[in-house]
């Protein structure tokens, strides 16, 4: 009984950590621009696919990962520079539709530049499962959790201890005021897209040894990450992480104890419940600091 529970929990937090990385990306861009970037899932896909193809091109895994993150960041910056940034002054809804268009474009591009097959990466440190009280955990899951934790700590440090991070927070609070005190809000917007793309790509690289990626592989991860961001409170850093874990664990427990046929529904039911009782998410109390 305990073994089963642990197994569901391990599954939930591993997947939840990936959702958290995607959710952080949503939140960062939302803070800088109030845009919900529906191309976030595509950054995840680009991270995984680019690593696969860089490795196929002869690069060792660590170098391939760095290049893949760089490619995703370029895609993120290009999205801001050539699509979202071009439409400044347009309504938020227009900008959101632009990101949906961008996501379709990126998927198409990936299917042409790379291919339509699914691809996988070798696990970073072997496939021998670790046994724990009757349940098993792959070493790759530990990588996912560890890297997510490090990323979360780095982000926290960035937003509270560096001038640039504080400038981003200030822009999130009040764009006009930030501009008046000399913050380059345009640069903040660029940075937010680059950062979000990097987070997505990291998630994509971490998950590919567990679940193969393909050109449409980012769609569902993007949606789940979005759910996580909503549950935690859009625009709230800690909320994104907690939201991701909640969605991941709810899915795993739901599939394990209730019915696997409705696995995807649990995430979306959770959103409805949260929005019903706490319209701005678990952490998104209006007027508090948003990351």
């Amino acid at each position, binding site marked *: 009984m305990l073994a089963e529970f642990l197994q569901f929990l391990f599954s939930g937090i591993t997947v939840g950590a990936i959702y958290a990385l995607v959710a952080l990306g949503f939140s960062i861009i939302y803070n800088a621009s109030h845009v919900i970037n529906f191309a976030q899932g595509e950054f995840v896909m680009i991270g995984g696919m680019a690593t696969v193809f860089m490795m196929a091109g002869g690069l060792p895994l660590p170098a391939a990962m760095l290049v893949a993150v760089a490619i995703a960041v370029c895609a993120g910056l290009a999205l801001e520079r050539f699509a979202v940034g071009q439409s400044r002054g347009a309504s938020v809804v227009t900008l959101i539709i632009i990101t949906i268009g961008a996501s379709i474009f990126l998927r198409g591009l990936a299917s042409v530049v790379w291919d339509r097959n*699914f691809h996988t990466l070798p696990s970073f440190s072997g496939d021998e499962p670790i046994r724990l009280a009757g349940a098993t955990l792959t070493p790759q899951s530990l990588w996912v959790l560890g890297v997510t934790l490090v990323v979360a700590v780095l982000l926290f440090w960035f937003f509270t201890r560096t001038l640039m991070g504080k400038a981003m927070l200030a822009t999130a609070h009040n764009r006009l005021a930030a501009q008046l005190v000399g913050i380059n809000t345009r640069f903040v917007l660029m940075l937010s897209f680059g950062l979000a793309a990097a987070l997505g790509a990291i998630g994509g690289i971490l*998950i590919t040894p567990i*679940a193969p990626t393909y050109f449409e592989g980012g769609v569902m991860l993007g949606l789940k990450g979005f759910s996580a961001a909503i549950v935690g409170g859009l625009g709230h850093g800690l909320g994104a992480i907690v939201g991701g874990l909640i969605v991941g664990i709810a899915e*795993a427990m739901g599939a394990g104890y209730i019915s696997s046929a409705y696995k995807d529904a649990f995430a979306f039911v959770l959103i409805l419940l949260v929005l019903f009782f706490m319209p701005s998410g678990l952490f998104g109390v209006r007027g508090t600091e948003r990351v």
Partner: protein
Amino acid sequence: MTMKISRRGLALGVAAAAVLGFASAGAKAETIKVGSFLAVTGPAAFLGDPEKKTLELYVEKINKDGGILGKQVELIVYDVQHVADKARTAAKRLIEQDKVDFIIGGSTTGTTMAVVPLVEKAEIPFISLGGASVIVQPVKKWVFKTPHTDRMAVEKVYTDMKKEGISKVGLIAGSGGFDKSCLKNAKDLAGPHGMDIVASETYGKGDTDMTPQLTKIKSANPQGVLFCGFGAPAVTVTKNYRQLGIAAPLYHNHGSGSKKFVQGAGKAAEGVRLPAAALLVADQLPGADPQRQPALDYQAAYRERYGEDISTFGGHALDALMLMKAAMEKAGTTDKAKVRAELETTKNFIGVDGIFNMTTEDHMGLDLASFKMVEVRNGDWKFLY
């Protein structure tokens, strides 16, 4: 890529229109027109791409050898992706504008079923490349198909399980059309084959971790587990299965019969059993097996032309084309009703998918012997029987 192909499609369309114009101008067109609509691009491109290449390669070969009944064969292919509406439009064009003598196509069950009413009304013989049994059950007068059905795959797996002394089965399936159809067949056929289904779980589109479902299956203590699905989830399920250390043998359906699966799942794939077309293990078949030579010939021809490995999907297109050729030659004419009648009485036709024996009740004509049981060993397919 899409642009290129649609342009080529356009060019074909223009060429076809030109031929039509020519024909109506009084000259007699001395070609046999074969129309095809396939998923050349889009998510089902792994089906349509080898099918199109195979048709082009073999139409060329047939023409070089003097054509059919002394007439050259003209192939018209439209890319309809995995979209039922596009398939309908393409079929209409093939029937009304291109006035084809025969239709081969529908890479998927969905696109095939969308076209069936049109073909039945226009009374044109049609061989589908779609998988599901619904295409030929109930029998439709003008509709035939070459791929094995998902039902046969399940039957083959159950037969092997019985051999291994397995009677308690766990099922895990995705939520797509193919997955659901496979799952339904697995449940329907369990009783007649003496199987007891102890657990049945599903996963969603885009799921990245199936350990919760497999944990549930594990706790039900099945003696064997059947996976109903294909593509990326096949890899994830297999890896998760090994991670949990489930001892019962894992069976896949024929959808996993691609090298992509073996490469993706790596060590986890070792020991997975599945039913597959003979093409997959052609060089391992015993010399007396009638499918050995046609399969090896196809493999060699395809590799020489395209420099890539064959897939079982291209083989379905090859069989469809050759069945058509045989039927026309036996009928001695391209008269649609006569060709259809000959197609329906096809006997002992040795194709790469197996030996076809069509009847008025069976418009596919393959039996279980045409499916081979294979196991993954050392990163390759091992022919069992």
